[in-house]
């Protein structure tokens, strides 16, 4: 290591405040020298920053990018484990996918599940958040209690709901009129049962996120609005909603992404039945990969699921991000 290098490294590790330029120790007049020094310092700063970030990047590459790229590579093959078959088929699997009715039904099931569940969760969650934001005795207890469904592992809550929906003994069946609805066994009903379970489980999470957003709104604005004579409803639409917008966007992104990848709740409730009417993309991919052992087509399904989720988040960021810019 040369002396110059050593000096650079040394400089780089110093806090900028202590450099001569900032401390004003150096006289003006030798500006070119200063600029050169500065450039060196900037470079080594950057190098050091890169070094610091490196471990995180390596981990990200190993646990995220490599598997994604490997899956994409697999999706270009016909690969069935049992037959030790691995032939490159290019985009053949994607071609088959386009004409695979089961894929389209899984895609529409997933979209329906995500759209309906997220809308209901957002509306209910907002309601809960508003209630929890008001001051009343026992508020902190209620805030803790509302989190219980979110705290239960999904598989456990799905199993619990499977019993609630049981056509012979289930509470849901007995509370509702018309006892012969078999929630998990009738096409149409099963999907809505799964949505109900997701709503029950995730509304507390949504409520909590929105509550955090509500608490950042200064009370003065409401007071001023009251003085101006704005009613509660007017205040909600003119103050609360616009100021909550960012939080709502984040919540929507979180929930839509989660709901589009839904697996555990639906798998435990119905395994995709009856007749695949509740089969989501993740369940179809899982079955193809693990039950059938078709790693080529299973990977194709995984990649498409990934692309869908990516697409949704890009759309959200683009559409909602731009509007936010306009609003501000």
């Amino acid at each position, binding site marked *: 290591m040369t002396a110059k290098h050593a000096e650079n490294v040394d400089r780089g590790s110093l806090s900028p405040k202590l450099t001569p330029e900032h401390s004003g120790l150096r006289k003006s007049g030798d500006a070119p020298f200063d600029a050169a020094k500065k450039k060196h310092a900037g470079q080594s700063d950057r190098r050091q920053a890169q070094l610091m970030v490196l471990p995180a990047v390596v981990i990200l590459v190993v646990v995220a990018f490599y598997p994604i790229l490997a899956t994409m590579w697999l999706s270009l093959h016909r690969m069935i484990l049992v037959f030790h078959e691995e032939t490159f088929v290019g985009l053949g699997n994607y071609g088959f996918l386009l004409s695979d009715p089961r894929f389209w039904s899984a895609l529409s099931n997933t979209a329906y599940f995500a759209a309906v569940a997220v809308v209901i969760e957002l509306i209910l969650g907002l309601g809960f958040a508003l209630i929890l934001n008001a001051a009343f005795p026992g508020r902190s207890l209620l805030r803790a209690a509302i989190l219980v469904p979110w705290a239960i592992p999904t598989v456990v809550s799905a199993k619990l709901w499977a019993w609630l929906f049981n056509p012979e003994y289930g509470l849901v069946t007995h509370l509702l009129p018309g006892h012969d609805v078999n929630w998990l066994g009738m096409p149409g009903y099963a999907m809505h049962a799964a949505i109900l379970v997701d709503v029950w489980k995730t509304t507390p999470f949504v409520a909590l996120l929105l509550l955090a957003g509500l608490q950042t709104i200064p009370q003065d604005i409401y007071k001023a609005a009251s003085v101006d004579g704005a009613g509660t409803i007017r205040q909600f639409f003119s103050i609360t909603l616009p100021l909550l917008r960012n939080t709502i966007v984040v919540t929507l992104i979180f929930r839509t992404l989660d709901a589009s990848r839904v697996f555990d709740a639906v798998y435990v409730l119905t395994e995709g039945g*009856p*007749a695949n009417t509740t*089969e989501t993309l993740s369940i179809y991919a899982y079955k193809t990969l693990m039950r059938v052992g078709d790693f080529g087509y299973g990977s194709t399904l995984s990649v498409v699921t990934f692309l869908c989720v990516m697409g949704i988040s890009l759309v959200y960021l683009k559409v909602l991000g731009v509007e936010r810019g306009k609003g501000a």
Partner: protein
Amino acid sequence: MHKAGCGVMRILTLVGLVCLAACHTGGGGAAGTNEPAKPPGKIRVVFKHQPMWGEPEPFRQLLAGFSQENPDIDLVTEVLPNASDAVHQYFLTSLEGRSRDYDVFIADVVWVPEFARAGWISDISDAFPPDGVKRDFLPGPAEAVTVEGKTYALPWYVDAGLLYYRTDLVPRAPKTFDELIQFAKDAKKKDPSLYGYVWQGRQYEGLVCDTYEAIWGFGGQTMNGNRVMVDTKESRGALTYLRSLFTEGISPPSVTSAGEEEARRTFQDGKAVFMRNWPYAWGEAQKPDSPIKGKVGITTLPTVTGEPGHGALGGWQLALNAYTPSWRREAAVKFMKYMTSKKAEVTLAVHYGRNPSRKDAYKDEGLRKEAPFIVDLLPVLENAKPRPVTPYYGMLSDVLQSEFSAVVSGIRPPEAALDRAQKFLDHVTQGGS
């Protein structure tokens, strides 16, 4: 310093060689030449099995018996999850990764052809010739472990679908489908709150078993050479019959989401006249607090002609990991022999209710005295049939589950569902090897 460098180099070279060898044997299936050398001392044999519910002591004693007989073998047991799907996934990934961490493991009856085709389990015909297996074991399991004339696993314990009926509600066991429907209707006339027939109609493996039993009851075959036959006259008849159970009010709508336990609970509460289930339900029905204790009979499943029907064969086999090094193989085979001996199977039957796969176990005096129900099951077990014996079973089952589910829940008529299933299967199997 120099010595250490040498060591590193040697390790690196070794790693490189192993990688090369691994690449070289890729796709071959059988264990390559890169198997690890035998370490000194006892031979370690690892046995992977699902949990044995109940008192652990008899099972421990059984394993200890093997260790006493073979002091040179160090037997290790490892427990698998109790969910068949999870176990299948475990073996799929670890055997594809050429795992040598275990030697003898349990395999569901439908996995044997798949694992054999993949080269994940060893051909054990040298130790257990197919003729001997056929002679010693029940016909259904013996057929299920034989792939292209070679033995790939040993039947350990067996299960088969059977019909439970309420002796206080029907005059006798029904022999035909028509009789079952008639008896159920008669019983419902006397007590309209009763259900006729409960079974497994949820979209899962149980539905495939129940449907195949109906197909066999209509005289259908599962295979024609290597082609899986799904769209046949008999299958259409069977699915039409299953759907009619709902439209005629014999089976409640809840059956379309029922697995074994849902059906058993309904039946055990005294709410149903008939039930299709596995033998385990008998023990539950005879418990002291069971409302139907002493009012239950068992019989073979009904058919069109009235001949005893075939139940779907279930149960578990012992298989030998293909990647087990040759010096461990002999010890592993010894262990498989021990676990499928008459003594071991009687122990499992008496203490854990596992039905022996071996014919001579049913003549055992101890079993006759301790578990007479298992001896009574023999006609059902002897008549059990394996679901299609094909390496494509995972794929087949996946398609059949959804199409059969579509029929029983009334989404598609049998003709359309079977046509879809057959087309898909032909597409896949003709595209395969």
